[in-house]
């Protein structure tokens, strides 16, 4: 039997903008996933540790403070250090177009910008996690 997808929704750094992350967390939960929300002001280390302890399939990182070019790569780096190659890293927030390619190179698979629909995010997480598990979505 397939176990439900487990997602850690996270806020790293000092950013307090949390409307988006909570709406997405709620939508993923309503879509049948197990969602852990870290709350705001987490260190990258704490985010990765939570994902490890929760045996998460995915980390969804939200950032609207402009610190994405440090915090996203830092989370990706820590995930590599911990051998979490099978865990999906995606994100969303106020991220300028020009920064997205760079973040993808660091291992952030997908960035959702303002205006993304919940339906789109749910579908993406289902498919991307299934791919990593080697299962059909």
């Amino acid at each position, binding site marked *: 039997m397939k176990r439900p997808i487990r997602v850690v929704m996270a806020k790293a*750094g*000092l950013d307090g903008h949390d*409307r988006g992350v909570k*709406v997405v967390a709620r939508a993923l939960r309503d879509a049948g996933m197990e969602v852990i929300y870290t709350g705001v*002001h987490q260190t990258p280390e704490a985010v990765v540790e939570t994902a490890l302890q929760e045996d998460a399939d995915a980390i969804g990182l939200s950032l609207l403070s402009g610190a994405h070019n440090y915090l996203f790569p830092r989370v990706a780096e820590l995930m590599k250090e911990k051998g979490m190659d099978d865990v999906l890293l995606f994100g969303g927030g106020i991220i300028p177009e020009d920064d997205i390619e760079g973040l993808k190179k660091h291992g952030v698979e997908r960035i959702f910008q*303002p205006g993304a629909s919940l339906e789109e995010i749910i579908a993406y997480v289902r498919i991307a996690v299934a791919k990593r598990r080697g299962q059909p979505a």
Partner: protein
Amino acid sequence: MSGVVRPGPAVPAPAEPHSKGPQWQAQYEAAIETHPERKARFSTLSDIPVGPLYTADDLPGFDPERELGRPGEFPYTRGVYPSMYRGRLWTMRQFAGFGSAEDTNARFHYLLAHGVTGLSTAFDMPTLMGRDCDDPLSRGEVGREGVAVSSLADMRILFDKIPLGEVTTSMTINGPASIVWAMYLAAAEERGIPFSKLGGTIQNDCLKEYIAQREWIVPVKPAMELVVDSFRYGAREVPKWNTVSISGYHIREAGSTAQQELAFTLLDGLEYVKWGVAAGLDVNDFAPHLSFFFDVHNDFFEEVAKFRAARRIWAREMERRYHPTNEKALLMRTHAQTAGVSLTAQQPYNNVVRVALQALAAVLGGTQSLHTNSLDETYALPTEEAVTLALRTQQVIAHESGVGDTVDPLAGSYYLEHLTNEMERSFERYRDEIDGMGGMVAAVERGYPQREIIEASFHFQQQVEEKEKIIVGINKYVSDADEAKVPTLAIDPEVERKQIERLTEVRAKRDPGRWREAMERLRAAATSHSELMPEFLECARAMAGVGEQVQVLKDVYGEYHDPGYF
């Protein structure tokens, strides 16, 4: 959640029957037979049901003398001043701050040269959270979302060549508000400007931090004591200063409805007054220094109604609870900012139009000052060109539209007065609920307003997904073609390194004896719950950093952690 009576609008209310006379009703039925109504249910952005027509029937028992009065007269529905914009226009106050103190000082001079009439400072995240720029959690954040101010050294540069005795300055800072305000006072003192001449506002609204904005430093009760401490000092030493800006803006941006924004903000205000009075302050001395700050969103009439209702409710509640003899204690004076959350990254030029409509609503709502957002703010902090356009939007409304030439021109509109009444009714339901819990501090500690907002924001997102609420460029009229690209502001990555260098230098060069004594006195005052503002001022003069002073407060009062509701 069954059995819970929710005062908010998360559960849509049924459409109201509207009796407009049998003849008109028949004509209406016939008309919609031919042209069916565009929606199954009409409601405002915040889900107040909207009927097809409003008449005197919708205002049963409406007494204009009692409900509206005259501008500048109780209950101030029509405005806090008798002449409103015929004498002086609202203050055009653009919120600005990015990079280093030098960068932001240059932007301030640019804005003043282009006609802003008040300054408003945006600090970066480390400053807002009371952390030094070299704190591990500050990495990547220095100068990003606002200007980095770590000590008096930065404050001097930030306001260099700005006439502090003439321009009023607003500072959006909360947890460490007193510490940063003290640095501003110390900078003015060095330039020989007496405190009595300084005008401005510190946001200093801790309650909405737990409710919405999440820039807290200590738990709720000690945070309230810090706010009351600034009331005491301000009323005595800096009489032209607003020592709190009770803010609905962040509550709304966190996803609340207009009714929740209105209710939670005014109830926050009433809680500050309660704490001030309990601490022995005279309501006639400090309540006139309370100012407000509201969001102004897309639903035009709902927003105008919100501002009018806010004035009426504040006057009535203050009168009922405290009977102040100083009339100024009854006035709900407010700043407004257009809704950042309403802007879209898609088709960004549409944002110019949204901002114009929202700004118009704020003016027709009778705001005292206004910030208009820039079209590029879903990408980054605004460029100089984008800010200029946002400011010009206000200037066009002020000088070309004519809406400020008479006071409260929309008064008496059946629909608007109906909505204004609805806003007041909704406030009363929340008031009874929260008063029943023992007030806002108790409600916040229970997570009540936090959860109400989460419900409302999720409900709204669902309405967008279902296309019950339309956002142009998002769920209707979506462009497949390449989006219009707007230029965005980039922050120099060197800012963080230079800021750390400057703070290191400040620490190395300051008088260690004076610094140590100031810090020890601060710790002693915090521990004994004595007056803190004089200590923060001495710490500023002794070149103590924001982060180290906040650390003292955390050592004494403890820290607050996000309960992580969702």
